[in-house]
């Protein structure tokens, strides 16, 4: 019985999922924008979850804040800037392409171009290679050794 009561408390305490029906905005266009923004914002108390996915109370507060800003007429960028001002850059799941983050963003494409260059050179070299040359002295010795076996 005590267990049951305890459980009821737990059930009350634990929200089942992220976006609750009460949070949803009446204007579907605004709601869609709010959802898209939520997916780009990190839940600060969770591990690697967006506020759109998170059950945490803080995530809910942030979701409501995003909606408040949108209802107040903010553009998506203004709403994000408003939140970054208060919670820091850490809140953005999409790291902005500024300062040192440029390295992060260009690393892949730069490596790709480099790899294309290197492999292109390799393929050209393979192509121009002449037919197999005569055996080297090492190989001759090895061949002789194998033939003796």
């Amino acid at each position: 019985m005590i267990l049951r009561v305890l459980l009821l408390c737990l059930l009350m305490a634990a929200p089942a999922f992220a976006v609750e029906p009460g949070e949803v905005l009446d204007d579907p266009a605004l709601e869609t924008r709010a959802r898209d923004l939520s997916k780009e914002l990190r839940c600060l108390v969770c591990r690697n979850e967006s506020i759109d996915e998170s059950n945490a109370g803080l995530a809910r507060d942030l979701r409501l804040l995003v909606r408040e800003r949108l209802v107040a007429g903010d553009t998506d960028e203004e709403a994000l800037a408003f939140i970054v001002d208060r919670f820091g850059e850490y809140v953005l799941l999409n790291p902005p392409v500024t300062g040192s983050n440029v390295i992060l963003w260009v690393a892949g494409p730069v490596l790709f171009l480099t790899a294309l260059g290197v492999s292109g050179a390799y393929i050209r070299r393979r192509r121009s290679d002449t037919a197999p040359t005569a055996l080297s002295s090492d190989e001759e010795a090895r061949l002789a050794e194998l033939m003796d076996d």
Partner: protein
Amino acid sequence: MAVEDLGCPWLPYYHQSMIVELGHFALILALFVAGLQMVMPLVGAHKRWSGWMAVAEPAALTQAALLIVSFIALTYAFVVSDFSVRLVTLNSHTLKPMLYKVSGVWGNHEGSMLLWCLILAVFGALVALFGNNLPDGLKARVLGVQAAIGVAFLSFLIFTSNPFLRLAVPPLNGRDLNPLLQDPGLAFHPPFLYLGYVGLSTSFSFAVAALIEGRVDAAWGRWVRPWTLLAWVMLTIGIALGSWWAYYELGWGGFWFWDPVENASFMPWLISAALLHSAIVVEKREALKAWTILLAILAFGFSLIGAFIVRSGVLTSVHAFANDPERGVYLLAITGFFMGGALMLYAFRAGAMQAKGVFGTVSRESALVLNNVLLAVATFVVFIGTIWPLLAEMAFDRKVSVGPPFFDATFTPFMILLALVLPLGTVMPWKRAKVGRVMRPLRIVVLLAFSVAALVWVVQTERSLMAPMGAFLGSWLVFGAGLDLWTKTGTDVSAKLGRALRLPRSDWGRVVAHSGLGVTIIGISLMLAWETEDIRVAHVGDTFTVAGYEINLARVDDIEGPNYFSTAAELRVSKNGREVAVLYPEKRVYPVAAMPTTEAAIDNGIFRDIYLVIGDEQPGGGWAVRSYVKPFANWIWAGAIIMSLGGFLSLTDRRFRVAAGARKRPVGVPAE
């Protein structure tokens, strides 16, 4: 300590037996055997002492047998709930169903490391058993290197995370396994992943052994490929299981989160896929040798980095279960030692790997080089995104997050390129190809793929390009695989079936695996483009419509499971008045772990999943209900299963079994 010693005769009976000590002893003995297996064959191979080299095989078998004993002992402790073992107390409970008592063995850091060591030893034993065709020196070196990895991990296990430690005063019951882990999907997710991670150690051992010998030839490519293939198949299954679990368990139907732990398993998968393809070039054409060796080293390197990421907790993530700096440092040392050592050896020896094969700019070889470039760069993108938060904080004192938007934007382009190039590569002949001749039969494939994309465009109500593009890429791969099969079976249409059946299994493997990738691409893009979500408050008796389905909340009950309490709803789903499904989503609470979970109810279909979740009772009456209709969701995992099936088919190819004396035959003769 026995119960009587505590002077508590009223304590209930619990199991405590010598078997645990036996397991502990076997574990320590395995470390010594691994030490022998490391030193003697490596020294023996160097000095050409055949007696010392011969130690490798029996030692590998003994080490595996000892670890099997050890693992069985730990499993026994979990099965009988021996709470005098600390690990059992922390991770089990008498009320837990048997399946989860057993899966609890590896549902924690210590037990999963024991499983890791066991698999490492079993792979060594398999090399000993099935490596009859390997030259003695190479075999001894492979087993020696494999044992070196074993020594590192066994001492890590014994000295920092011993699973057999006892408690002086055993408690009456355990603390239960994390309820999220009490799930059939997740029970088998880690063993498959470990088979994959650890399987790559064998490719690594082959690479290091080849570097020590200073020789890589076609035969080496043939020997290393099945091990890589096996590891890749296991990784595919493991990743698919994890993603499927996330889909139905986390309560909103996401299947991939770009979480550091997921990335940790994805990076070895991508790199081993690259390795699989470059090893073919080594085997058939004796080119790309140094690169293939490097990939084999890096593939295991990413497994080690993955182990480090998951277990050190430096990159906090949803499902890391061991966050311990001391263990992290140890694992970093292991990673540093094996990667540093292997790469140093590589720097000295890679120059000696002379490539033999000559090929034109347009050829199968070039296509496989491009495959490798794309897969390697994609791996790098995942890697830098995963560690960037750490790098940025250390180097620039900047706290940033790198989440799905980054990975979606930077990883996807490479996969699109890969999918575009893939069918071109498969119909390309080795050595030299004429562009015109290769392209001609592909025209029909392009046409077919475009028709599918057009159909998708017409059918959809959204105006997004994602679905048609995904459908094009996916069907381009599937039809391309069909063309691959068609061109391999000659021109005589009546003889095609017979010829197809007689094709080498590796040809079938390639066709099947590539179409699996196509199926997955179709699944991901159509589901993401077309899914419908509905969040609302529903009262019992209410009916609402989601994407053409009428959903009726029939009732909500409290029920009791073996080790949880649950709120279960009954929802009736119908379409045009005909009942489609009755679904029972639940909200559970596991009292021992004091943790709630959502159990979504899913009606699986070939073309759509109906995915229902029940939430809280609302203050104004009624229940929060979330409904999703997810088109083509199952194609994602079906594609993964098809891919792994392709891998299995390839693994059973005759040339891997009958490769005896491979080095005696003239090298460089293509088997096709």
